[in-house]
């Protein structure tokens, strides 16, 4: 019943768990720019005038929102691996190509997050009145400045709550990458369990750490929303 010893003793598992936690948080943070960025791109394309473009983007979103996240992960991971392998063979290179699991995890999670976030971005983009852009152009701002100083501040205010929810989902979804073999927090807890036979303790610790990060995220989210809403009643 020596909980302290299990974690911090000479053969304690706190080190592995902490390393796992770093991987989990790193994975989630690394996914954000790609996932949200690609999502924004998708959203802009979804509002395009060309039907084919719109249709393709909608199909992408429907596909990745309609299947289990873990299946999406497997499809991206194994699909990418198989595809790379074929290219490798086609280019007549020697040997075998192996993808780094962390990178594969970031790509796979970004694929899913992009699909989810594009819906949020679309709603946010639509909420910014067309007149705002026109007014900015009339004042002589170029496209970049219009986006950065006029559209974006109004956009992000509407998008933040939705993006915050997706971040929460992402934080939990990182645990799925452990099934591909990445030693994240959950996998670290699993390793500790296998070596000590104390699943209840280690999985509870992992669950509590995830929970703490969820709480922390919601606090940060509330702060960010407050900041984005400054200037609005």
């Amino acid at each position, binding site marked *: 019943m020596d909980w302290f010893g299990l974690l911090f003793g000479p053969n304690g598992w706190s080190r592995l768990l902490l390393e796992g936690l770093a991987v989990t948080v790193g994975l989630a943070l690394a996914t954000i720019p790609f996932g949200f960025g690609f999502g924004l791109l998708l959203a802009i394309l979804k509002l395009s005038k060309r039907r084919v473009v719109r249709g393709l983007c909608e199909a992408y979103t429907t596909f990745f929102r309609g*299947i289990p996240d873990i*299946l999406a992960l497997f499809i991206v991971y*194994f699909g990418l691996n198989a595809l790379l392998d074929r290219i490798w063979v086609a280019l007549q290179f020697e040997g075998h190509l192996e993808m780094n699991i962390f990178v594969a995890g970031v790509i796979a999670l970004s694929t899913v997050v992009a699909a989810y976030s594009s819906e949020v971005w679309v709603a946010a983009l639509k909420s910014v009145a067309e007149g705002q852009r026109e007014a900015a152009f009339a004042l002589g701002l170029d496209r970049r400045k219009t986006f950065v100083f006029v559209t974006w501040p109004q956009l992000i205010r509407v998008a933040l709550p939705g993006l915050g929810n997706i971040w929460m989902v992402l934080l*939990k*979804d990182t*645990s799925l990458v452990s*099934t591909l073999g990445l030693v994240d927090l959950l996998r670290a807890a699993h390793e500790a369990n296998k070596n000590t036979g104390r699943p209840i303790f280690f999985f509870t610790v992992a669950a509590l750490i*995830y929970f703490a990060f969820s709480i922390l995220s919601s606090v940060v989210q509330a702060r960010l929303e407050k900041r984005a809403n400054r200037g609005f009643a």
Partner: protein
Amino acid sequence: MLQTLQDLASFVFNVDLLRQYGWRLLEGLRITALVVCTSVTIGFVLAYFVCRARMSKNVVLSSAAAFYSTFFRGTPLLCLLYLVYYGAGELRPVLSQIGIWWFFRDAYYCCIFIFSINTSAYQSEILRGALAAVPKGQIEAAASLGLSRYRIDRHIVWPQAFLLALRPLGNELVSMIKASALAAIVTLLDLFGQTRFIFARTFDFSVYLYAALIYLVIVEIIRRLWAVMERGLSRHVLASAKS
């Protein structure tokens, strides 16, 4: 060139695979449906009580319910699933003694157990939101007409709340179907479990795409079904809006 195209086509479609393993996917679909239907139903009943506790005036009860729903929504389902599935083994002597080891020994029941709890946390929030959205004046008016507490709930509050809750509950059903794929990680041969089994046998990537297609079709069916239900339940609102 033609060879490459054929190669690419077989990468995406493989009819022989379906002929040989199609029944496995259907069997997996049956298990997925069973797990999801059972969990969502149990979860709904649980959610009702959690929601009641959350809205009670008793501080201990309401904060316990608040912790319950925040905790189970803030923790990865896979982690909770491991906790139950592997944790049950550790508690085996105790569980055998009180005669419920048969329940936790089985991955199927473990999944239903934790999925029910997980979905009840989400559903309780949905119910709470819906109940809170029913205007207070309605309840006061009903009370002033002399309706009993039960009659107010049954005839005034729930019909309105349920209409508001319907769409989010449908979304929750969809996300439960998607989350149920995790059952495969603890050896249950549900749709995703069978998919992984077939992939391990054949190394044929297309089986993942078939599984994705099946999930997509189910999700789409539920979306349509829900649209029909919503239209049916909100007839009176639409009628009054027109006149």
